[in-house]
Structures are given as structure tokens and as C-alpha cells.
């Protein structure tokens, strides 16, 4: 089975890159083009997902599972007991690795179905869902331990050797993307009974492929060219042109202060949001405010703080010296 997908993935590469995507001009999808585009532009890379094109074949889901299989958890059982048992859930997906209808530690991309009205017809749209790769990712920034990092090309990823599985990244993620597997990782070597609970997993935008100048696997295998990847300005231009063309809508450009994933949909996202199943491992399409904005504002206020302190001390000294003169 594995080799079958590989062959398909391989064949697709040559077909897709030589074909329609390149013909449409600026789209960055051919491996060599991605390589050329990256160093030239200091900009982060952004993916564009054209929802109207996706047929829900799940080739991308399979490809993602295949290229990342070596990174999937391999938990030791039985799991060490974790205390207090009532507040520390055991999250075990190792017997449910074939689940593909939501995000799990073994499934970093899934196809979300939406029942919506389009031009008076009841239609079903398919939407590839995974980590949005936020511009200022709360998961990375708020991990109290540095287990995540953001790369200059805009992707964010969790280091499975460092993650302790406290799931703070999931709590602070506006889409609750990272998924936990108990019984793996660093916490086992520290105090498994009292701290940590496994490792969190999510799409890392195929960092290992990008390093080699290859596009992410899900982009490469898609028979419908649903996704493209390229420098931000270029992709944003493209997204707006596409939205205009289909009279459509954009998601991800401003959500959470901006993300490196732009969805273009023929129906408004609030309608899309009503047409999908949301819940655990199934992210929504709601409006999301910039989660890090308040912190950024306070950080700026911190610049004023020392001056306020100096001013207060000076004021006190000045008043005292005036008292003395009297």
C-alpha cells in the first residue's frame, strides 16, 4: 500500500509541476521554482487553498500520513500512571491510527465536508484542514518550555523530542490544532507520574521537504491543484484575484492577526462554518482576533515603564529639595 502511494505521488509530481500550475504563471509549485523563490524573497511562504476545487479524494491525507509516518508516535504500553488521575486524561490514538475524519496525532490533515447553499443549490464542499501556520503563532510563543519553534519561512512545528505534552499549545491555539498522544516523549524520562502527558502533534508544513526545496506532500499529490505555495505578497495577490474571479471569500489573511494559510471559498465563511461539523479535532471557520495583540501592546507599554519610574523618583527629589529651601 505504501509503495503504491509513493509511486502515485512520484508520478503526480512530474505531471502536476509540468502542467497546469506552471502554465498559470506565477504559481510556485515546481520544486525548482520553490527553491528559487525562497532565498530571493525574505518573505515567509504562504499556502493558498482553493476550496472550490477540492473533490475530497483524500490523496493529500494519505500523502501526509505517508511522508510523516516516521514521525508518528510509538507509545510504550502500559502507560505510566499519571496523577491526579481525574485531571490528567490519557489520550491514546495508537489503536485508532486509521481515523481520517479529524485531526489526531496520526492524522495531521483531514477533509472537512461542508453542506452549503451555492447559487440556490445545495452543494457539498470539501475543505482540507490542518494547522494554519499563524504569523505570530501562540502555540510557539506561549509554550513555557520552547518545544515549538517558528521558522523564517513561516512554518511552525513541535519538536517531538522536547514536547512534554502539557497541551498548552492546543489550549492557546484558536483552532485547537495540536493533538496529544500519551505515553511517548521526554516526560517519560523525567517525572511521568506528576508532570507532562506525552507529545503534541500537528502539521509541520513538511519542513523536511521544504528544506530540500520540495513542496509539501499534500500539495504535490493533489490531482486538482487545490493548494499552491509561494511568497506571501505573491500568494495574497493571487488569493484576492481568485476571490474576485469566483466572487468568493477569504479566510486566514487577518484571522489571529494573519496566518500563512489562505482559504478562498465561493461561499461566505460564516455559512461554511455552519455547514461543517466542529468539535474535537475538527476546527471551525469563525472570525479569530489576534490572540497575541494584547501582549504586543503591553510590551510596548513596558518601554514607558522605566521612564515613569525615573520621573517619579525625580519628582520626589524635586519636591523634597523645594521643601528644604523653605
Amino acid at each position: 500500500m505504501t509503495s503504491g502511494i509513493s509511486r502515485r505521488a512520484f508520478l503526480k509530481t512530474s505531471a502536476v509541476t509540468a502542467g497546469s500550475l506552471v502554465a498559470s504563471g506565477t504559481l510556485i509549485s515546481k520544486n525548482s521554482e520553490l527553491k528559487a523563490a525562497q532565498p530571493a524573497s525574505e518573505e515567509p511562504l504562504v499556502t493558498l487553498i482553493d476550496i472550490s476545487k477540492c473533490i475530497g479524494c483524500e490523496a493529500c491525507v494519505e500523502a501526509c500520513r505517508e511522508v510523516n509516518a516516521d514521525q508518528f508516535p510509538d507509545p510504550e504500553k502500559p502507560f505510566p500512571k499519571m496523577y491526579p488521575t481525574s485531571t490528567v486524561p490519557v489520550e491514546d490514538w495508537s489503536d485508532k491510527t486509521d481515523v481520517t475524519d479529524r485531526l489526531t496525532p496520526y492524522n495531521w490533515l483531514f477533509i472537512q465536508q461542508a453542506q452549503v447553499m451555492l447559487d440556490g443549490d445545495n452543494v457539498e464542499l470539501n475543505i482540507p484542514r490542518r494547522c494554519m501556520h499563524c504569523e505570530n503563532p501562540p502555540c510557539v510563543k506561549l509554550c513555557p518550555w520552547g518545544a515549538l519553534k517558528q521558522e523564517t519561512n513561516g512554518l511552525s512545528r513541535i519538536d517531538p523530542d522536547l514536547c512534554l505534552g502539557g497541551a498548552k499549545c492546543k489550549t492557546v491555539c484558536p483552532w485547537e490544532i495540536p493533538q496529544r498522544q500519551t505515553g511517548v516523549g521526554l516526560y517519560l524520562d523525567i517525572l511521568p507520574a506528576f508532570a507532562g502527558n506525552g507529545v503534541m502533534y500537528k502539521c509541520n508544513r513538511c519542513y523536511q521537504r521544504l528544506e530540500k526545496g520540495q513542496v509539501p506532500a499534500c500539495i504535490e499529490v493533489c490531482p486538482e491543484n487545490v493548494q499552491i505555495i509561494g511568497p506571501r505578497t505573491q500568494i495574497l495577490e493571487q488569493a484576492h484575484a481568485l476571490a474576485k474571479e469566483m466572487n468568493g471569500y477569504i479566510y486566514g489573511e487577518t484571522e489571529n492577526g494573519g496566518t500563512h494559510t489562505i482559504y478562498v471559498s465561493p461561499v461566505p465563511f460564516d455559512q461554511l462554518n455552519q455547514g461543517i461539523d466542529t468539535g474535537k479535532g475538527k476546527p471551525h471557520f469563525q472570525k479569530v482576533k489576534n490572540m497575541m495583540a494584547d501582549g504586543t501592546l503591553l510590551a510596548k507599554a513596558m518601554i514607558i515603564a522605566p521612564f515613569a519610574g525615573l520621573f517619579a523618583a525625580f519628582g520626589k527629589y524635586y519636591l523634597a529639595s523645594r521643601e528644604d529651601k523653605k
Partner: protein
Amino acid sequence: MKILNNAGHKIFLVILFFMTLSGFSQMPIFKRYYIADIPGLGWLAQFYVTHMIHYIFAGLLIGFAAYMVLDSVFNKTGFKKISRTGYIKIWIIAGLMITGLVLVVKNLSGIYMGHSMIIFLDISHLFLCVLFLMVSLYSLIFKKPWQAD
């Protein structure tokens, strides 16, 4: 003359108390250990809330520190009166402020730090905080005030 009057000392203690509390709540421990279940303490498990609180009190601490430095320059006698444990605590707080500020910079958009840098900052920040608590406990038990007489 005292380096800090009673009101000033109380403000300082309140700042450090909330910094420590909101600092520890950056780690996902208060929910696990039921502390966030105590009525009135639910906010300890709300990461964005505790993050804001840590930032607000960091601003106050910076302002306070700047005040103390300039005030002791004007006082002339200021720094000479500080006890040994006092000096240790001041250096620890300075370390907390420096590592903390770099962490604040890290959290700004467009700042990319590698794992080792972030881990170094986080661990030294946490280590300094624990060290501060230990020195404070020591000076409380053995009655070592900030000011040497």
C-alpha cells in the same frame, strides 16, 4: 534613613507575589493540581489572562526598579545600606528582568528564536525565580532584612 518606606515595600511585595503566581501559571500545572478549581482562582488556568497579568506586573516592576535606582542615586547613601542577601536578591531580580524581557521580545511577531535559545531563556528564568524564592525564604527564616544596619 530607610531605602524604602513601608508603603513602597508593600508595593514591591505585591508586584513580586503576582509575578511569581502569574509566572508559574505559564506552565500547565494549576488545572492539573486542582488549584484553578478553588473558587476565585479559575483565572490561573486561563493562559491569556495570566500572560497579561505577568506582563502588567513586569511593567510595574520595571518602573519600580527604575525608581529605586534613581532614588538611591539622589539619596547617595542608598546602595551602601543594602544587606548581602539584599544584593543577592537584587541581582536575581535583574536576571529575571533581563531574561523576561528577552522572552517578551521573542513573543513579538516576526521574531524567530531556535529551541536552544528559548529553552535557555525559559530555564534560566524559571531557575532564577526558584532561586529568588529560596533566598527569600532564607532571609525570612533567618531574619535577614534588605537593609543592613
